[in-house]
């Protein structure tokens, strides 16, 4: 089967961001003043564990950002002269990996690990009798001949999954230890003993054990999700695990693209206001004071609603559903960025005000260094740590903001998978009797994992980069 790559605007931005991050990593590795604090971050066990969890999220998000359109195979012979036809449905690399999970749709709600639907249905038997019952699910536990063996089957599958995961990780870990041992010129056995004691510079013990836990969970989920809906299904019968995984990209995008939009404004305007003073300072200060006194939700609602009107008026510009929801997501990022740059800008201005009186800036002025160069070479690198700290601290806030906005109804496209939409949907589900709790719980668990690890990681980053916290 062949595919046609389909690059959405947000995909392109993510690739751009990825290039930036890689570029920064290369740059940082060549500059001692940047390398040292990062080394400190990577020497903290908790930070490394958090980063490993984060990287699982990120790799899922990245896999979900490679979009493709499937080729529709023509009935009969594939003629060369005929132009290939591609589906209008855009799928991602993640969809291909998840394979069956996407297509395993039931009719409607089902509990996690259920074999039968959640609600009763009227079924007409072969003999014409009408019965009310919980019908069997199409996929959930469909392989079971004897439904009473379900518990046993789940247990066996879980243990198998965990064992497979652990063994795979063990092999991988052995490989890593071997490589590290060769690179540090140590015997692998001695290195292993030191790792066990936690006596290594890089916290290998935490890294390897976190990896083992992640690997076990992932592998168990893979084994189980083939035969069950591990997190149940939603109203239209879609697998909740699949939805939750698809939501990761949305959360990550909001968290990172918003920053990408906001940073140039906040940093350049903040530095300009602080360094140039005078009327420039006045204009920038009034702008952000005015902007920050308008309620953010109001602006966001206005922007999103007007975009919606535009999209309905010009349907021809958006060929696929994915493009429509993508446009809305991008717009949300831009408007979120537009409302949230003021805080960082204010910080930048204050720090620059402090820096412009510092002796080395004065010396640069005395040497006749042009103003633009002073801002770029002297001030910018010295406020970088604040930018970094606020970016990682803001990230989790933005992920949460998306959930709140979608809940209010001005967030991402309702058709798009996002934790906010899942929570929004849960409004009605929670009102049912008996309650449908799994959508909300799944959204909560996934979001919690992302935000918690992001927060832990950003704490470590702040500790390493904030000069006031630096140990002497």
């Amino acid at each position, binding site marked *: 089967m062949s595919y046609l790559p389909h690059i959405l605007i947000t995909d392109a931005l993510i690739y751009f961001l990825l290039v930036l991050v890689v570029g920064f990593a290369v740059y940082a590795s060549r*500059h001692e003043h940047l390398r040292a604090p990062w080394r400190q971050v990577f020497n903290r066990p908790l930070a490394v564990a958090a980063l490993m969890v984060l990287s699982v999220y990120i790799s899922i998000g990245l896999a979900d950002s490679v979009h493709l359109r499937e080729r529709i195979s023509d009935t009969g012979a594939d003629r060369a002269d005929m132009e290939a036809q591609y589906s209008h449905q855009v799928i991602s690399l993640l969809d291909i990996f998840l394979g069956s999970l996407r297509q395993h749709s039931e009719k409607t709600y089902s509990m996690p690990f259920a074999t039968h639907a959640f609600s009763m249905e009227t079924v007409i038997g072969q003999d014409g009798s009408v019965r009310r019952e919980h019908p069997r699910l199409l996929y959930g536990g469909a392989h079971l001949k004897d439904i009473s063996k379900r518990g046993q089957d789940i247990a066996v599958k879980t243990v198998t999954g965990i064992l497979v995961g652990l063994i795979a990780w063990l092999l991988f870990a052995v490989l890593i230890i071997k490589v590290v041992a060769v690179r540090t010129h140590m015997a692998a056995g001695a290195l292993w003993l030191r790792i066990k004691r936690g006596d290594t510079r890089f916290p290998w013990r935490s890294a390897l054990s976190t990896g083992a836990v992640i690997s076990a969970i992932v592998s168990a989920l893979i084994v189980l999700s083939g035969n069950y809906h591990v997190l149940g299904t939603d109203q239209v019968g879609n697998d909740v695990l699949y939805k939750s995984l698809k939501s990761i990209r949305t959360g990550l995008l909001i968290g990172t693209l918003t920053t990408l939009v906001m940073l140039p404004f906040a940093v350049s305007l903040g530095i300009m206001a602080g360094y140039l003073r005078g009327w420039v300072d006045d204009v920038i200060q009034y702008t952000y004071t005015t902007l920050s006194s308008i309620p953010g939700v109001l602006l966001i609602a206005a922007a999103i609603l007007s975009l919606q009107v535009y999209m309905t008026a010009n349907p021809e510009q958006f060929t696929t559903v994915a493009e429509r929801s993508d446009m809305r997501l991008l717009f949300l990022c831009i408007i979120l960025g537009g409302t949230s740059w003021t805080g960082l800008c204010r910080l930048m201005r204050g720090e620059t005000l402090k820096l412009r009186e510092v002796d080395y800036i004065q010396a640069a002025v005395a040497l006749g260094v042009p103003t633009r160069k002073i801002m770029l070479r002297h001030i910018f*690198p010295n406020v970088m740590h604040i930018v970094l700290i606020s970016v990682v601290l803001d990230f989790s806030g933005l992920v949460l903001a998306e959930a709140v906005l979608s809940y209010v109804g001005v967030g991402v496209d309702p058709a798009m998978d996002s934790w906010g939409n899942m929570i929004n949907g849960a409004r009605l589900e929670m009102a049912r009797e008996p309650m449908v709790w799994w959508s909300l719980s799944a959204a909560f668990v996934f979001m919690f994992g992302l935000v918690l690890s992001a927060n832990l990681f950003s704490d470590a980053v702040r500790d390493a980069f904030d000069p006031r916290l630096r140990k002497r």
Partner: protein
Amino acid sequence: MSDLLLEVNDLKTWLDTESGTVRAVDGISFTMQQGETVAILGESGCGKSMSALSLLQLVPSPAGRIEAGSVRLEGRDILQFAEKQMREVRGKRIAMIFQEPQTSLNPVMTIGEQIREVLPDRESLSQEAARTEVLRLLTAVGISDVKRRYDEYPHQLSGGMKQRAMIAMALAGSPDILIADEPTTALDVTIQAQILDLLKSIQNTTGMAVLLITHDLGIVSQSADRVLVMYAGQIVEQAPSDLFFSRPRHPYSQKLFRALPGRGKRGARLEVIPGAVPPLTTQFSGCRFVQRCERAQQICHETVPAWHGENNWGVRCHFYDTEEPVRNASETSAVTTAEQKSPGEAFLKVESLKIHFPIQKGILRRTVGYVKAVDDISFEINKGRTLALVGESGCGKTTAGKGVLQLIRPTAGSVNYLGKELTQLSRGELRALRRQFQIIFQDPYASLNPRMLVSDIVAEGLDALQTGIDATSRQQKINALLEKVGLNAEAGLRYPHEFSGGQRQRISIARALAVDPQLIVCDEPTSALDVSVQAQVLNLLKQLQDDLGLSYLFITHDLSVVEYLAHDVAVMYLGRIVESGTLQEILDHPAHPYTRALLSAAPVITRGGDKPVAHEVIKLEGDIPSPSDPPRGCHFHPRCTVAESRCRKHFPETTMLTTTHSVRCHLQK
């Protein structure tokens, strides 16, 4: 005077850091008697403050710990005391004052409340009695108008007054020992003299012992009975004050004396102590000073020197009994050559320069007044000469320096450089001229961008000139500059934080030299440095002047540096130059009462061999008034000992005593 009060024995205080265990205090022993002033003398980082903190068990924990030793206060080892017992010692038996009065006082409590907090029997005292006691203490430390001061906050007090309040707090518990950790380093010379006097007089009335921690030989010479010289965590020499100054025995002490700048050493190179204090994380197998000692022998590397001599007069050196080699042949001969240099033509003329900062109040930011930081000053700088701008902090000397460079645009007046009026130039025209004037700052830690490589810092001026030189010749130029200031070429590949204060100051100088300037404004370039390092920087500045014909505008408060380096001197007080002339004229025939007071207040080191010069100290009362509200008439009259009624009415006009010597004082007409 012979009652043994404190006996410190083999005290060791170690700090755990990431780079290893720092042996900040490594086995020091000394005693203190009642009523005695013992000075601990040492450069920064030698462990003198840590020793003082150890006595009170105030070592920063958890990193620091007292590893061994005993501190016996009247026979009882207070290091064994629990925290609760220790509280009885702190403040009541041993009190401490710190270097920075600014940060030692709580800014949101009034002075009175803060002192009342530390009264020993505050629970039993009534509100009224406590107040009376605080007022008594404030009066005792020489604060005037105590009833008003009682209700004032720290920011309303001047630096000297704050240090007095700190001393009042220390005296509240009537301690037996007062530890004074660099009590005057943050203060001006005239205020320093006041505080040292105050300590002396309190000591005379109460019989308290003082442990004075300082880096300043002058202070030691003036106030100490006994001197302990610390080096790298150890006491290397201990001697009664007069013996120490007449015959220092440790090579380190001897070198310290020779590194001091002063008038007698004009023209000659100052003796420098090469290298730096070894890191205290090292395990020493020999003498700690060995790397910097020119008399070091094989034995110094291999054996840790023992304590030679008695307890009160001894030294830790293998060669304590050999005399210091005689050296003064070069000194006198060089003086004449330097003085004979004819004054070049004036190339920078500053006339009636005024820099006023508006004070704005209210929502509409209306200007309600001006801080007249620089108020009508004029001077000239000649080619190849050094003009020293002398004054106490807050007198506007730094502002004047920046005004000359147009880093702060002057309010009025003219700065004329070879016929070009700098104050009238546009930003672009000025930028082209910038390279002619450079500046070196006081704080070596703030003057270099921590995010840039040293070679990029040095090349900054070259890049700004846009000479379009190619990479190799740029690199060659950088290396040449680094070598010129005594650094290796490979220093360019490192970041500023890897260098010590003195080395950083050299990098600053290299950066300034890169653009071939005519004039360098040196804004207290050595005041943050230790004596031995200061000598290196002063030597370098002097040599550069001789080689390149640079002119310096040397801003400083340190008269010994002025005596060593300057050709002309201008004395500033509260934004105005009160007296200016050549070095000889100012030093030998000071005409203004303020100049005389300033000269007499500077601590003079009397070395035993010399006949003590008749040294009458003119004591200045009070503090420098605020430049936003200067006194009417002559700015100096409230503190002047010879003021007359006309001094209160008009600011005196300039009187020319000779062609070069001018003064602004009514009494010199």
